[in-house]
């Protein structure tokens, strides 16, 4: 079933029976434009002074499900997630959480989200232990909860053994684990992960996948963006395919992959949009 930019999916949400909370996140007609300078115009071979990175994107990830945002590089996945994470402000459209525009009380909303992207870096000079404590305090988490959450997350991610090593001395995979743990320090209701298994070895990646499923069962709203089909097929309940800033397809994974694989669906769409061109 295909739904294009018309708000909620026509498909039934998955896993709702497991949801413990009933938070609601609504993304409606989201657009983001970036100004291009002459150098950028030249490199993009365009006369337009504006780049529309996201164009009229709507979707509503629900509690107790994982929403997979799939798309090639430059499709607008990261920009969309950044807007949901309040890093960027939409040019138009709205994002509401529990019926309220997130920009009305942005800090209140930020307390409830966990955001992870490869561009978010940890200060290399500090240890995972200190960084977790520091970030938790910024989220207003009390000391007792910080200790408990740290023990839980460091245990699950296998960080305990290197929690006192400076981040600059950790491998990429270890850093990614620490970033993941820190993004969940505030026990967020909305989890926004951009390429969550990037840089992880297969064992760590499996641990992250399992933990995402745990969080899903706790009723969290989870949005992941990736270009790995197998990850979406393994984790997502619903899928949105973004190409050139447009939501080309949105629906439940089950329905989308009823007749063919996700990969075939994606490339079919891609060919249709790009006219057979591979960029």
């Amino acid at each position, binding site marked *: 079933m295909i739904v294009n930019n018309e708000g909620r999916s026509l498909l039934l949400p998955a896993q709702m029976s497991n949801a413990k909370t009933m938070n609601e996140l609504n993304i409606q007609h989201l657009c983001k434009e970036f100004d291009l300078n002459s150098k950028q115009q030249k490199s993009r071979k365009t006369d337009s002074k504006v780049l529309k990175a996201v164009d009229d994107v709507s979707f509503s990830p629900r509690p107790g499900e994982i929403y997979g945002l799939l798309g090639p590089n430059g499709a607008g996945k990261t920009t969309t997630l950044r807007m949901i994470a309040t890093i960027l402000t939409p040019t138009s459209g709205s994002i509401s959480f529990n019926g309220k525009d997130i920009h009305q009380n*942005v*800090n209140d909303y930020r307390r409830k989200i966990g955001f992870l992207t490869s561009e978010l*870096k*940890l200060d290399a000079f500090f240890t995972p232990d200190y960084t977790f404590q520091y970030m938790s305090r910024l*989220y207003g988490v009390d000391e007792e909860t910080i200790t408990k959450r740290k023990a839980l997350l460091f245990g699950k991610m296998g960080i305990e053994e290197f929690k006192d090593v400076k981040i600059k001395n950790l491998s990429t995979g270890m850093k990614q684990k620490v970033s993941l743990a*820190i993004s969940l320090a505030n026990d967020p209701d909305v989890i926004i992960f951009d390429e969550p298994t990037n840089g992880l070895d297969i064992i760590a990646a499996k641990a992250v996948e399992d933990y995402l499923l745990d969080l899903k069962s706790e009723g969290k709203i989870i949005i992941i963006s990736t270009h790995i089909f197998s990850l979406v097929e393994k984790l997502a309940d619903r899928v949105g395919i973004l190409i050139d800033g447009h939501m080309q397809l949105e629906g439940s994974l089950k329905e989308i992959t009823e007749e063919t694989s996700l990969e075939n669906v994606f490339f079919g769409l891609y060919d249709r949009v790009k006219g057979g061109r591979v960029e």
Partner: protein
Amino acid sequence: MKNFRTILGKEFRRVFTDYRMYLALFLPGFLIFFVYTIIGNVVSDTIVNRTYEEVTYRVAYSDNHGSILPNGEPSLLNAITSYVNASETEKGCKVESESFPVSELSSYQDKLINGEFDIVIAFDDNFEALVAASSAVHPNISIYYNGNSDNATHLYQVVSSIVPTLYNTYTVNMENGEDIDPNISSGDSTARQVMSMIFPMITITLLLSSVMSLCPESIAGEKERGTLTSLLITPTRRSDIVLAKITCLSVTSLLSGLVSFLGVALSLPKMMNGLSFTFPIETIIALFFLILSVLIFFVLIASLVSVLAKSVKEATGYLGPLMGVLIFLCILPSIADMSALGWAFVPLLNIATSMSLLFTSPAASVVFFVCTILSNLVYSGLLLLAISKLFNNEKVVYSN
């Protein structure tokens, strides 16, 4: 405020647990001390402690001085001869003198230029008697020397140092193209003059250097590494982030500046060959406020540049030429008169002028000082507002 404290704690931890930061903060001060001390020793050995052996100094003096000495010579000549005879650096030196009618001063000035004399002294009529009587009339003494001659220059320095001691300069004006302020009667005056020229430039340059070594790293560095974004997605007010960073930068830069200042203060007497200077506590307090004021101003300027820059390299690139402009502004008060009140509202120039005035004429500098501090507070407030606004601008903060 809780997040302000948390970020401030992290910023301090970042600075004070990194040995490279210690080097950046405190090394300049130690280097200044060692370099200035070495320069002082070299200068002292080559110039100040230079010996003048078997030199015959030729002195001409006007005969209208109204001698109070039995031999009819001016007491100054006696003092010069005594000094030359007693000094270990003037072994075998002699003083030859000749008196002349004051009406022939110009012809003796010509002789001075021709090298017939090293120094020509012209007294006001009845000079010695007026000094001895502690008269309300301040008699004048004019001393001329030929700057092209080492011996003449040296003798002039000797005479210049003798005059205030000999005549009690509260009653004497001395001329040689420059006036000695009758209110300042010792070597202190020279130290003050030198300090008024050197202090603003050295202090401001040192403070700016320490700010430059910290600011780009703290703001542009965080932008470049992506750690600032991690901070910006937390529920923290942008103003708390800005204030915490600026507070940490100000405190650490102040510490670094103080170490550098200490380096200057301890090495300067060596550089000036033992010239000492004393300042009243009010001057020191005023200097502290000026340093604090200029420091905050620098931190804010450097922060503004760092927020706008995409990387540490870019920020440093912008701050480099800016430093040149700032140093020029610091030199300006020592080459031109900037004491008009209007200059108190020109940022940085007001600080340099205020510092200079504190050394040369402390009493006259009060209004200028107050205007400087107030105007800098206003400028700093405006800069703080601008930085907070920029932190909310995604084009600036996420420019990478």
